[in-house]
C-alpha cells in the first residue's frame, strides 16, 4: 500500500535572471517500508523535490503544479497550520549539512524537547524520549546537555536523525545525509538508517548523487536529470537492465576495483535551467541522440513492470 503518492510535480524558481524549472513533471509512489533513492547531479532538482514534498520550497521558488498525496490527502493544499503538524512528526527530513541544521546557540536537549513539545508530547515525558532516541542512534546521555559546536559532524548528524525519528514518522526524507561526512562515518550513518527502516517500518527517501550508494542500499531508484525523472526501477532491475543513456553514463563513471582504465565521465555541462535545450533535456550530452531527441521531449515509457524510462530510443538501445 502506498504511503506517499507524487503526481506530476512541477517546481519553478522565479529569479531576477530568469525562470528556472527545477522540477519538471516528476511522479512516483512510495510504499510502506520502502527506501527510494533519488539520484542525480547537483542541479538535477533532487533537493528541490525533497523540499517540495513538505511544501517548503524557498522563495523565489513555487510549486506550480502537481500533488503530493500523503495518507489520502494532498498535503500541498493544506494550510500552514495543518502542514506544520505533519512536518517532523509524520514526514520528517534530515539535511545534508549537519553544521547548520542544529541551532548553535542552544543546547541539544532544549532544541529536541521543544520539537517534541511542539508536536504535543507531554512536557514531563519529553526528556525521557530525548534520552531514549539519542541512545537509539548511538549517542551517550552526555550529548544532551552539550552545544552543537562541541559535537563532531557524525554526532551532529545522528542528533538530526534522532529528531527525525523520534515521533515515528511514516516517511523520512534524507537529503544527502552522508555527503558532508567521511567514509567511515558514512557507513555508520547509513547502517543506522537501515536499522531505522527495519525497526520502525518507516519509508525512506534517500536523495543522493552517489549511484553506488543507491544501488547498495535502496529498494527503488529514480534517476533525475535537469529536473526530469529519467529512469525509475527497482534496484535489481535497474542494475541488470539499465536503459537510459544517462543512467548508464552515471554507472560507467563509478570507479571499480578490477577496472583497468579510468572511469568514463560524461562530457559537457549540466543544462542551464533558465534556458533549457529543446526536446530532450539530456540530448546535448547523449551519445545516442538523434534528430527526434532534439525536437520532441520524450515521454515516460514503461518498459517492463515498474520500470520507467524517459527516452525516445529506449526500444532500440540495449
Amino acid at each position: 500500500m502506498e504511503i506517499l503518492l507524487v503526481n506530476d510535480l512541477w517546481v519553478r524558481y522565479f529569479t531576477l535572471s530568469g525562470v528556472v524549472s527545477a522540477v519538471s513533471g516528476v511522479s512516483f509512489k512510495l510504499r510502506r517500508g520502502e527506501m527510494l533513492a533519488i539520484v542525480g547531479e547537483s542541479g538535477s532538482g533532487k533537493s528541490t523535490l525533497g523540499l517540495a514534498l513538505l511544501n517548503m520550497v524557498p522563495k523565489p521558488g513555487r510549486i506550480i503544479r502537481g500533488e503530493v498525496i500523503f495518507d489520502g490527502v494532498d498535503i500541498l493544499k493544506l494550510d500552514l497550520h495543518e502542514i506544520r503538524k505533519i512536518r517532523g512528526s509524520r514526514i520528517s527530513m534530515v539535511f545534508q549539512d549537519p553544521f547548520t541544521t542544529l541551532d548553535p546557540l542552544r543546547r541539544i536537549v532544549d532544541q529536541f524537547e521543544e520539537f517534541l513539545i511542539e508536536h504535543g508530547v507531554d512536557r514531563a515525558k519529553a526528556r525521557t524520549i530525548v534520552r531514549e532516541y539519542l541512545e537509539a542512534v548511538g549517542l551517550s546521555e552526555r550529548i544532551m546537555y552539550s552545544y552543537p559546536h562541541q559535537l563532531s559532524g557524525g554526532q551532529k548528524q545522528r542528533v538530526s536523525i534522532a529528531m527525525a525519528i523520534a515521533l515515528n514518522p511514516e516517511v523520512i526524507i534524507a537529503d544527502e545525509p552522508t555527503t558532508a561526512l567521511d567514509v567511515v562515518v558514512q557507513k555508520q550513518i547509513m547502517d543506522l538508517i537501515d536499522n531505522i527502516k527495519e525497526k520502525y517500518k518507516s519509508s525512506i527517501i534517500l536523495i543522493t548523487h552517489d549511484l553506488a550508494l543507491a544501488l547498495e542500499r535502496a529498494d527503488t531508484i529514480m534517476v533525475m536529470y535537469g529536473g526530469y525523472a529519467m529512469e525509475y526501477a527497482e534496484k535489481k532491475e535497474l542494475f541488470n537492465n539499465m536503459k537510459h543513456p544517462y543512467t548508464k553514463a552515471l554507472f560507467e563513471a563509478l570507479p571499480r576495483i578490477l577496472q583497468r582504465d579510468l572511469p568514463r565521465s560524461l562530457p559537457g555541462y549540466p543544462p542551464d535551467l533558465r534556458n533549457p535545450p529543446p526536446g530532450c533535456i539530456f540530448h546535448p550530452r547523449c551519445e545516442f541522440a538523434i534528430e527526434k531527441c532534439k525536437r520532441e521531449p520524450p515521454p515516460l515509457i514503461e518498459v517492463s513492470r515498474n520500470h520507467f524510462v524517459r527516452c525516445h530510443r529506449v526500444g532500440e538501445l540495449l
Partner: protein
Amino acid sequence: MSLLRYIAIRALMIIPTVLVLYTLVFIILRVLPGNPVLAALGTKNIPEEQLKALMSELGLDKPLYQQYFEYLFNFIRGDMGKSMIIRGRPIASDILDKLPATLELSIWSIMFSLIIGVGLGYLGAGVRSEFVKTIIRLTGSIVFVIFIPALGLGLQLVFSKYLGLLPTGGRLTTIGSLKPITGIYTLDALIQLNIPVFIDALKHIVLPAFTLGLVISGPYMRLTLNNMEEILESKIVEAYHARGIRESKIRRHAFRHVLIPITTYTGLQFALLMGGAVLTETTFNWPGIGTYLVDKVMYRDYTAIQAVVIIFAIIVGLTSLIVDVLYALIDPRVRY
C-alpha cells in the same frame, strides 16, 4: 579559556588605552603654547608674584614629566586634582557627583534606541513589502545624522512650550523629597516606592533620552532588519520549519542570533553615545559630566578637562568590556 580569565585579560587591556589618551591630552593641554593659568583667568595683567604663587599652588611650576607622573599616581588614588577656576575645589567630587546623571541618561537613551531601532528592524523583517524595508533602512541612515541640539530644541518647543507637558531641563523639580541612593533618580524613586518623584524624574528624562535615543537608533534599524532577513533565509531556520515548529517561535530563536551583531555594534558605538550625551546634556541642561565638561571648557579649566577625558576613556573601556561579556553569554561558542 574560562570566562573569568577572559574578563580579567580584557580588563587589563583597558589600562594601556587609557594611558595613550591621557598622554595625548596631557601633551595637548600642557605642551601647547600659552600659559594655562593666564588663559584660564582670561587676563594678561597679573603681577609676577601672584602668578608664580598661583602656578605653584596648582603644581604647574614643576617639570612636565613630574607633573605627568604625579597626576597619574594621584588619579589612581582618587585625587583628580583641583579646579583651576574655583580655588581649591577637588575635581573628583564634582565628577563623581555628576556621573550618575550621565549614567541615567545613557541607560534610558540606550533603551529608547533599542526599542525604536531594533523594534523597527524586527518588525520590518516580518513585512513582505520591499518598499517598506527600504524606507526603514533609509530612515535609519537619516535619523543617525540629525543634529542633536536641533532635535532637542525642537522637542522642547513642542512639548514644553506649546503643549506644556514636559519640563525643559534639569532632572527634578521636587528635589527635596528624594533621598538619592545610586544617584539615578528614576531608579532611586522606584526603589523607595516614591511614585510622585518617580513620575517627576521620568518627565524630566523623557525628552533628552528620546532625543539621544532616536538618533542612536538609526544603525540598529538596518542592522536588525538585514540580519533578521539573513537568518530567516538560513538553513538553521529551514531546519526549524522542517521540524514543524511554529513561526512565532522560530522568529524568537532567529532573534537570538541577531542579538550577536546587535551586541557587537553596541560595544563599538558606545563612544558615539558618549559624544551624543555631551550634546544632549548641554541642550537640556542635564547636570551630568557632559555639561560639566562644557562648563569647564568655557572657563578653560584645563585640569578638569584633563580629568574628564581620562574618565571617559575609562568608561568606554569598561563598557566595551561589559559588552564583550554579554556577547560571551549569548554565544556559547565563545565560551567553550
